[in-house]
């Protein structure tokens, strides 16, 4: 294996789990998440020599995965997500205490347009600030703010409708 391939493979091995988690929150399906990660990593591979010169491999990979998801969302309806419970959920973990909230969250995320969903995931799962989120999405910071605000309003409504405790956003992790 060439040295570039080795370094890329090592990077991909470390990054793929986190990227897949992000992709799953975007699309709601683990298999499709894997597809988006694969597509994103292919884009990373193509740009790899330049990336390793300039740095920022992970940010580039995240952007590529999000782009793959948004591309797909444009081609399909942004609401086209699996309605059935995810059959792949690992039964070895006790989810009883969190299943209602996470199920509601998953349902609520499904209701959001793709870009709003991306804003929520990037801001509150990836912990990106407005500026970095705008970079990933290739839009203005104002758009990120407005899309995030609309998304949060919808999510809160869904939690209210489900008679769950109110949804809040904790401070960003240090």
């Amino acid at each position, binding site marked *: 294996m060439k040295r570039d*391939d080795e370094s*890329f*493979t090592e990077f*991909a091995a470390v990054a793929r789990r986190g990227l*897949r988690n992000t992709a*799953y929150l975007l699309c709601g399906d*683990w298999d499709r998440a*894997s597809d988006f*990660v694969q597509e994103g990593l*292919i*884009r990373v*591979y*193509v*740009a790899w020599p*330049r990336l390793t010169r300039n740095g920022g491999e992970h940010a580039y990979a995240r*952007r*590529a995965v999000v*782009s*793959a998801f*948004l*591309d797909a969302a*444009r*081609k399909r*309806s*942004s609401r086209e997500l699996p309605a059935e419970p995810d059959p*792949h*959920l*690992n039964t*070895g973990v006790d*989810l009883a205490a*969190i299943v209602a*909230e*996470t199920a509601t969250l998953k349902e609520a995320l499904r209701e959001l347009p793709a870009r709003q969903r991306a804003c*929520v995931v990037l801001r509150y*799962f990836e912990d990106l600030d*407005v*500026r970095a989120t705008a*970079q990933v999405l*290739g839009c*203005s*910071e*104002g758009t990120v*703010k407005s899309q*995030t*605000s*609309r998304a*949060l*309003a*919808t*999510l*809160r*409504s869904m*939690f*209210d*409708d489900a008679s*769950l405790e*109110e*949804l*809040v956003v*904790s401070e960003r992790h240090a």
Partner: protein
Amino acid sequence: MVNDLRRLLRDSVTAPPPDRMRMTDVLGTGKRKVRRRRTAALAGVAAAVIGIVGLAGLVGGGMSPRPDDSSVADRSNDPVGRVLRLDDAEAAKEGRDYDVLTTQTNAHLDQENGQYFDGFTDDGLVFVQDGPRGKDSRVRYGLLDPETGIRSWLPTPPVHLEQPIHLGRYRLLLRAAAAPAGENGPGVWSYDRRTRQWRHLEWPDLPAGAEYSGTVLGPDNRLYVGLASGSDGETFDLWSVAIDDPADVRDEKTEVGDFDIAGTRLVWTDVSSRPISKVTVRDLETDEEDSFDPQSGDRCNQLELQATATRIVLTEHCGTKDRVRDDRIQVVDYDGEPVLTVRGDGSDIAQAGDDRLLVDSYGPKPGSYLYRFDTGDWLRVTEETSRYGLINDAWADLQTWHTPANGWRGAKQWVVRLK
């Protein structure tokens, strides 16, 4: 006890199933793409340009040619005409430059929805949205007289409406937060201010399953809507529908990027989210058309267009260099002549009016900035903008903007009278 969004997102991914993605597939496909690029690069200058565009599309996932992609060759990217910089703005003073008429503070938007100023009606009232709140996600809409503070609430519509399309003296048009399932259309509701009745507007002949971009009211009492024309989200097919006739649906046979209407003029860019080469203006009364190249930078992604009576305002992101964003608000007249360009890291158009421009900045020089075309005043009216996506609007000499409240956990909206 509350539900924290960050925790729930983390909890949602604690038990992933095995990942069946194979690295050999990634490497194999990646190598084939690299080979194709190299082949293209050897095929002469013209092909090399295509290769760059192809790579940009690949990198950006079809969203845009990344302006910060160092593989894109440097071309003319400088703004034309007069440039206004944020540093040049003078601090505005209450009493000298404006008077505050009223404010709306929501202290805890990080935890709950609030009450929002969502724009001015044509007769100078503030359209107010309250909520959604409570178990049934109740939303109220009202009209506030900013002079007297008197607020009157409208009858509650059956769905959550979010985006004002037109706030008229006689009729309010709003888009639903989510279009009803199975509806061919953007989900529009009309409120008759005289009869106090809400009415759902539907056009069954609009294409099914379309993704809508922009909904603008024209002078001919028609709504103009953009329907995604491809998979890339950069161009849209323009359709129009008659407000009062559900059977009157017209394919305008025009592909647009971003579009807007001012008076009788329909204005559009050739693409969105990519560098543009053409702005077209059609007079909706005479159908006469004219187009020009606004000479936006070759690496400036078109983000938004607002048309006013005498000017066209384009918002662009022109790349990032050394971690500094090159964001621009480019103003041209209807002949395509440059009027001015506001250039600054994190600059974004907040609202374009006939006599003024409100710019929000989220970069190193944060706050709201106001340019007045009549006097040439360039003022920094606030030193911060809130982190929430609130609507800014103008009516006559009234203007709104917003600032943080309660240590960034909330927002304060201001209605001011400019002097």
